[in-house]
């Protein structure tokens, strides 16, 4: 056996083995880019959702971009954001569509560009969406109506403050509400208004209602901004407690209104979970796992009685620090 060849072989082996040991420390958990496009860049609901998403992003090593138009009515703004996002080609897109139909086109386009899309908060009219993560909005609407009718004792006149006309969640809540109210012939819906998720607009409309319908018994609001806008006017007018208000979501101002009696009950979603689960499932989707078509994050009706129950404390005030 030629000795030189042998030595060479040995050297090769040693080299090979040392290389492979170094090579074994590769990171298999690479960073993923996920874009989160919601309806509005402010508001308690959205900031809590964002926090949930960010906690998950940190946990799952995701580079999260939070994008939102300045207000919920800015549908074109949101379409532009989705288009921009398609340009960047993230690994997944999480979309809370402001308009069921108008966002459908751009959603299809994103799907066509092989970007997996998960709908959160409110659905979009595209069959290419992988999953919906959020509140069961129809049920939320029903629960609001149920509580209102209970408070009114089965008869009365109510108004509904919805937020964006073509938003899927707005429509579903309204539908659920109307379907429930329809069972009670003595309950009359005087008006359904859309405040475009603007507190000011909600307040203005409420003032109009108070003037127009002096016999108004209750107002149901269908999102956080609407709730604040309505609550402020009711309190201002000194009608707190006389006029029943069922509000939506739990920003601190609404919590105060609940405690001072302006608002009788809150239909509370789980925005933190919406955000967290959206990112978590997006990661699972990217990793090629199958996820459920619909993931319901639950709702709760909170009133003075149960607001300090330990489990509700945790829901209402998720942030300990």
């Amino acid at each position, binding site marked *: 056996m030629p000795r030189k060849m042998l030595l060479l072989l040995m050297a090769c082996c040693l080299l090979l*083995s040392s290389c492979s040991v170094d090579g074994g420390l590769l990171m298999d958990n690479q960073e993923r880019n996920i874009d989160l496009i919601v309806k509005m860049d402010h508001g308690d609901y959205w900031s809590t959702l964002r926090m949930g998403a960010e*906690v998950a992003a940190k946990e799952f090593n995701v580079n999260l971009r939070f994008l939102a138009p300045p207000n919920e009515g800015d549908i074109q703004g949101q379409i532009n954001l989705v288009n921009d996002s398609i340009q960047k080609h993230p690994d997944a897109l999480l979309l809370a569509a402001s308009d069921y139909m108008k966002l459908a086109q751009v959603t299809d386009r994103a799907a066509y560009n092989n970007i997996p899309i998960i709908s959160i908060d409110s659905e979009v009219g595209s069959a290419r969406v992988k999953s919906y993560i959020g509140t069961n909005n129809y049920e939320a609407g029903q629960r609001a109506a149920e509580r209102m009718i209970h408070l009114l004792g089965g008869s009365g006149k109510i108004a509904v403050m919805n937020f964006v006309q073509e938003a899927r969640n707005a429509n579903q809540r309204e539908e659920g509400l109307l379907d429930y109210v329809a069972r009670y012939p003595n309950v009359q819906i005087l008006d359904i208004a859309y405040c475009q998720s603007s507190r000011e607009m909600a307040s203005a409309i409420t003032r109009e209602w108070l003037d127009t319908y002096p016999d108004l018994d209750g107002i149901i609001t269908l999102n956080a901004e609407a709730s604040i806008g309505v609550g402020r006017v009711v309190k201002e007018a000194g009608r707190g407690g006389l006029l029943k208000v069922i509000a939506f979501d739990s920003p601190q101002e609404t919590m105060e209104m609940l405690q001072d009696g302006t608002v009788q009950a809150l239909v509370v979603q789980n925005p*933190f979970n919406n955000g967290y689960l959206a990112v978590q499932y997006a990661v699972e989707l990217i990793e090629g796992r199958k996820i459920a078509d619909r993931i319901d994050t639950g709702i709760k009706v909170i009133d003075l009685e149960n607001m300090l129950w*330990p489990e509700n404390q945790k829901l209402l005030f998720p942030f300990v620090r």
Partner: protein
Amino acid sequence: MKHFKRIQFIIAFSFILITVVTVLIVSFMLYNKFSNTAEDNADLNMGQVVEQVKYNLEMYVKNMTSIFDVVEETINRSPSYSSSILEEQLNSIMKTREDLISIAVFTKNGDLVVNIPKMEMRPYTLLQRQSWFNAALETPDQLSVSSPHIQNLFKTSYKWAVSLSKQTTYHRDGLASKGVLVVDMNFKTIDELSRQVVFGKRGYVYIIDSYGNIVYHPQQQLIHAGLKYEDLERVLTYSYGSYQDELNGEQRMITIKSVNPIGWKVIGVAYKDELLTTKSELNTFLLWFLIVVIIFVLLLAIFVSARISSPIQRLARSVKMMGEGHLNTPIPVSGIYEVEQLSRRYHVMLQQIRHLMDQIIVEQEAKRKSELDVLQAQINPHFLYNTLNSVIRLVEKGQSSEAVTAITSLSRFFRISLSKGKNFISVQEELEHIRHYLIIQTIRYKNKFHYTIEAEDEVLHFLTMKLILQPIVENAIVHGIELMADRGMIRISAKVDAGKLLFEIADNGLGMSRDALDQLLKNTPNSAQGSGVGVRNVNQRIQLHYGPDYGIQFESEIEEGTTVRIYLPVEIAQKEGEV
């Protein structure tokens, strides 16, 4: 199958087998030992860290208790709860501690007496339903520590708090009343104590109260939101100790310590795969070690076995060549010691064989030559011519009886010379042969010499090589007697001497010098004067046939004569018919 019997294969295979088995066993033992140690260390380390957190918490609780005592004492001593001095004192206590949210005193009915910082109370506090309030009323002398809860008393942001509460005495205008003192503290310090603690990359500690409410958890929001889960029921059954559980398919090590006196528990959680990274690192290391060792040993084995077997193979090839008749094939003499020795010995042996073969060739040639010589001697024409001349002379002189004797002797002489082609004849025949020769020679040399032939009786039947005496006698006549002035004498005898057959031919002729003697036995060419068969030839024939122990000895003195002794082995002649 032949392949597996090869020495190279056997050595390499056993080498590798032994090494791999040894390395495997050692690796296995090391792995077990190390992983056990790693596990024990991880356990111990975790226990110590959790103990430290527990200790810090106890210190913190003690600290808070003493602050509570100070607050209580301040309120007790104050003559009036509404005095600005009390407010100032309480405010200064508040300022020293970042983790105090509020201090408040309530009447037993739940009405606010005093609170720091000054804030409006919420209208709907459900005070009587709050655990800290009830606990203070139920155990008046004992400090109660509440579960974490949202402090909903005052119109400020909603904060998670732990409430320390106790029944206390306050004074209103000098009158002592009983009330409930509550000090709310946030989780700042507890967070700080716990957040730094990590086990591995993901391991952590969390703290629960005695009812299983989470006081601190690094993922508290997720737990509150129901997105993460801790098996609190199992934790609550322990006050001290550690166990292993499985969460989402991951093995976790749980270590629990209780915080005295408030009954909180510090729970350390470590992920086993992380804690035991050393284990997996060890795994990888051992695997690579094994691979490297095997490769190394493989190469070494191939190398060593080649070093051992290749000289043997070369030697074998040489031997094979040799066996096929290529005697001049070179023998390799390098490699390991044993093979080298073997090669050397073999080499020596081979040389010996070559030498012997050469010798055989030389001897065969010599034998053939001497036989030719004998053949020639049998029909020596010169001798015949001389003898016939002598006979003619006798006849001319009319000495017919002598002529008859001469011709008879010649006839007898040739008859024995030929002996039907036999090479060996009896001593008797040989003596007969020489007697006839001497008769002829006496006639030829005109009685220039006498001769006697003596033999012991037993000797007569011994075998001898034929025609060995005639050249000696011829030599004695030609060199010893012919030139003598006097009448010569030749004595021939045959006897047994020291187990050997001995012919002795003694003359009283001129004798020979030492040089001449030496010449005689060495390389003298056949004497032209002689019968044609030299003395040397006789000696050569004897030694070629019987070996170096036998042959011719000379003894000679100038002017005294020469004695030649021929030694032969004793061989009994076969019966006439068989030879």
